[in-house]
């Protein structure tokens, strides 16, 4: 098992390097940072623009390979370069990872557990009222674009609870920013309510559909019947033998989705004004910020690597049939 994982890790590291390099080239060739400075009134001197761009290693007159080598050298030493504003990308990314983690950790946990539970329950109560309602609600949410759902939740909170009852813009109210005392935590929780709910609803909707169908496959299985014939109560048998087996095919999906959400919660972050990694992905591209774009790509590639290994580990832990001896 250890050797298998090491080999897999080595293979995937190569893939991460390839992906990151390729995305640097794509970003470097297709983004035009100079356009941020062109066409201003009064116009900036060409040399000034070139100087500014040289400072951040984004001058299109420097050959792409040379720029890449400079960037790659920095990355190798733990420096992701500078943003187009000249501040270090490391700081920017570090701050934003913190934001995304605070937003997503709890939401993905609740979303996955809720999705699995709801899906399994829906399968057990197939075609009963509970199943019909959850199925309908899931498809309703899945069919709705994220920003519509976010907007809907905002409006609903204002409509039913009154404007200002729930503060939902940003991570905290300005006066609590940077504080971690009890009152600040309460404020943070309040701010997390709506974006968290958005993420939870989407995840529950998605995962519950998968879990429902895999659980349905298991419900008619012979081993579940055996478990009950041994004398296990229905509920114990359903959880211990049924759900335990039905969750296997859902595990890789869960792991990949959860891990990749750390760069994929773009719309939720945008809608609620959280400055996380998802927002950076969009912002860096619109601002022609080559280094930030490359950093987000690298981060994503690393997440894929982590998700792959995590899902392999989880699967092997849960299913003895795939363990390598």
């Amino acid at each position: 098992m250890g050797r298998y994982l090491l080999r897999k890790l080595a293979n995937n590291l190569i893939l991460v390097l390839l992906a990151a390099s390729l995305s640097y080239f794509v970003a470097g060739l297709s983004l035009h940072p100079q356009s941020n400075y062109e066409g201003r009134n009064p116009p900036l001197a060409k040399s000034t623009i070139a100087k500014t761009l040289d400072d951040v290693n984004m001058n299109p007159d420097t050959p792409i390979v040379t720029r890449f080598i400079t960037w790659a050298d920095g990355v190798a030493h733990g420096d992701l370069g500078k943003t187009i504003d000249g501040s270090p990308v490391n700081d920017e990314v570090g701050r934003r990872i913190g934001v995304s983690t605070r937003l997503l950790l709890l939401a993905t946990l609740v979303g996955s557990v809720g999705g699995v539970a709801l899906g399994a329950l829906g399968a057990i109560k197939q075609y009963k009222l509970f199943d019909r309602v959850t199925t309908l609600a899931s498809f309703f949410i899945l069919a709705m674009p994220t920003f519509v759902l976010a907007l809907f939740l905002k409006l609903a909170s204002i409509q039913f609870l009154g404007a200002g009852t729930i503060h939902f813009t940003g991570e905290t109210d300005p006066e609590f920013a940077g504080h971690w005392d009890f009152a600040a935590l309460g404020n943070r929780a309040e701010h997390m309510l709506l974006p968290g709910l958005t993420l939870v609803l989407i995840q529950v909707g998605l995962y519950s559909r998968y879990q429902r169908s895999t659980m349905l496959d298991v419900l008619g299985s012979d081993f579940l019947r055996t478990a009950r014939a041994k004398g296990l109560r229905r509920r114990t048998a359903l959880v211990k033998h049924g759900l335990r087996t039905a969750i296997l095919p859902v595990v890789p999906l869960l792991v990949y989705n959860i891990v990749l959400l750390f760069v994929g919660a773009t719309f939720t972050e945008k809608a609620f004004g959280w400055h996380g990694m998802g927002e950076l992905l969009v912002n860096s591209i619109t601002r022609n910020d080559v280094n930030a774009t490359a950093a987000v790509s690298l981060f994503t590639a690393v997440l894929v690597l982590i998700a792959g290994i995590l899902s392999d580990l989880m699967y092997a832990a849960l299913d003895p049939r795939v363990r390598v001896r």
Partner: protein
Amino acid sequence: MTDSTNPSQPSDSTRTKEGLRPVTDTRLDISQPVLEVSDLHVAFPSEAGQVRAVRGVSYAVRPGEVLGIVGESGSGKSVSSMAVLGLLPESAAVTGSVKLNGRELLGLSDNEMSKIRGKDIGMVFQDPLSALTPVYSVGTQIVEALQIHQDLTKVQARERSIELLDLVGIPDPKRRVDNFPHEFSGGMRQRAMIAMAIANDPKVIIADEPTTALDVTIQAQVLEVLKKAQDVTGAAIVMITHDLGVIAGFADRVQVMYAGKPVEAGSVDEVYYSPRMPYTIGLLGSIPRLDDTERRALTPIEGNPPSMVELPKGCPFAARCPIAIDRCREVEPTLSVKEGNTHPTACHRSHELGDTLDPAAIYPVPEVPEASDLEQRPRGERATVLELDNLTKHFPLTKGAVVKRKVGVVRAVDGISLDIREGETLGLVGESGCGKTTTLLEILDLPKGQVGTVTVFGKDTRSMNRADRKTLRRDMQIVFQDPMAALDARMPIGDILAEPLKTHGWDKERIAARVPELLELVGLNPDHADRYPQEFSGGQRQRISIARALALEPKLVVLDEPVSALDVSIQAGVLNLLDELKTRLGLSYLFVAHDLSVVRHIADRIAVMYLGRIVEVGDTQSIFDAPSHPYTQALLSAVPLPDPRRERERTRILLTGDLPSPANVPSGCRFRNRCPKYLSLDEAEQLRCRDEDPASAKLADDHSAACHFAKALEVI
């Protein structure tokens, strides 16, 4: 009553060496039934209406007794046992009474039933592959069964589960206890199931088709284990199966079910030797038997079982019954002992059977088509249709993701030679995993490479070009095991039959004329050509498959387990059809099957395969009357006969263990590590078996075996 729950209590008093006898002994209080089912009804709602799956089942079993419940698929035999355990879905409406030691079980809550399931009633299911939870080790699952009902610590429960595994004959149980189900073979999984069923010394064991998915030699082992389990626990067994042979040797009493109702019940001797219900008579007449010496046509029961949604008025069997009278279509008969009978039947005319009606003569015996001129010619004078010479198919076993290293060889087919002449049926038999299917696929592939040659109609497949191959394929067709999977559900059967014709360039008019002709040939209505496969029953679908294979007028038809997915009463009709077509059209068959009785019925010659080799080959008579390879002998002796008295007298040659992996073939004779004969040899002789791979040696004109010490033995 308490005696019967004591595991150390020998139940020998209820049985003799010859087998189980109806209980007359009075030393134990065994007159009281332990499980009593009366007037059980089960109905399910469905879109088409209410499915009345069980319509009044009653039986009682006493400690140490074995009750067999026989019936075809859909007869309600499994549903009734699920109802006893309270394991039916909530939507099922169950009425009647189920009493365990006098306590009513119907209506108990799930919690209360949970205390009975697995403790007082143990259960063994059909498919051991899917009946164990794949993610828990075998030990964990037995420990769980123990800890639900007994106050045992983890260590104690584990000790006990090792004991149980040892009891059911799992080798090296200390190590095996930690294996997962996928690391067990089919036979071992079924043993583990039995271990689980007897873990809490149940009073009743319900076994639902416990050996159906297993090979005959493994079936014999598992039945032996089940008997041992009964000895140890003194439990009553309710054995549900479709196999009349298994019941004959195993049960004391038997109940025959049809359309959700028992139609005949009695001791095995009564039911097998003097059946008084036309369905039972038909069932017994429709099975090919291993001990048939004469070639005869089987008597199929025409028609299909009725739909359980809209049961016709009167007797549900009336539509298929050869002696139905008007009354049968009006009033449904009840199960009772009719005048002059020894045991209860549900038939209006039971009293006439055995009196004015001869039970053996009520079914019209189909005529055996007279042997054609071709079939009468001596074998040596007929042309060879297919010849295999040292056919070999090895698969490399590789390791490594990027660079594949060869770490071993799977010897799926390891040098087989045989030939089929015109108008002849060769039966290829062997257990699953012996290489039968690979052999078939190799032949149909018309191989170019590999070792050995395949010669079809005198042409070596290695020297053929594309056009030759296409022509040759026309002359060789195949019929698969599962007719539903082999027919495209989206095509009307007319199109299915026309497809091979189109492929080989027939024009429209000829195809239009050929399709109805083919349907008629296999006994189907030509007007049904525009129907879809799912509108036909299993037997009819297999007839369609046969018609498709015959569309291009082939000379050789390869039949891969063509009747094993069918119920016995349907199977007989298909076998008769195959027999008739062979004579009429001068076909040759390569018939692959695991059911030796079927093979005996249909084949002219038989080749027995073991681990990629043919160990014995010869004409049917020689193979069955004088089997000379120890493997053939074991195989034949493992097949149960539908004849209770003979079953009791037979001694089985039990093989130990499972078929070895073809990736790891033993040295010398590949059968030696399971061979019963090997054990009786002296050291010098054993050495020969270990070192020298036995070549096929001629024993008679058309009979040879690959054994150093081949000697005929009567085993049937």
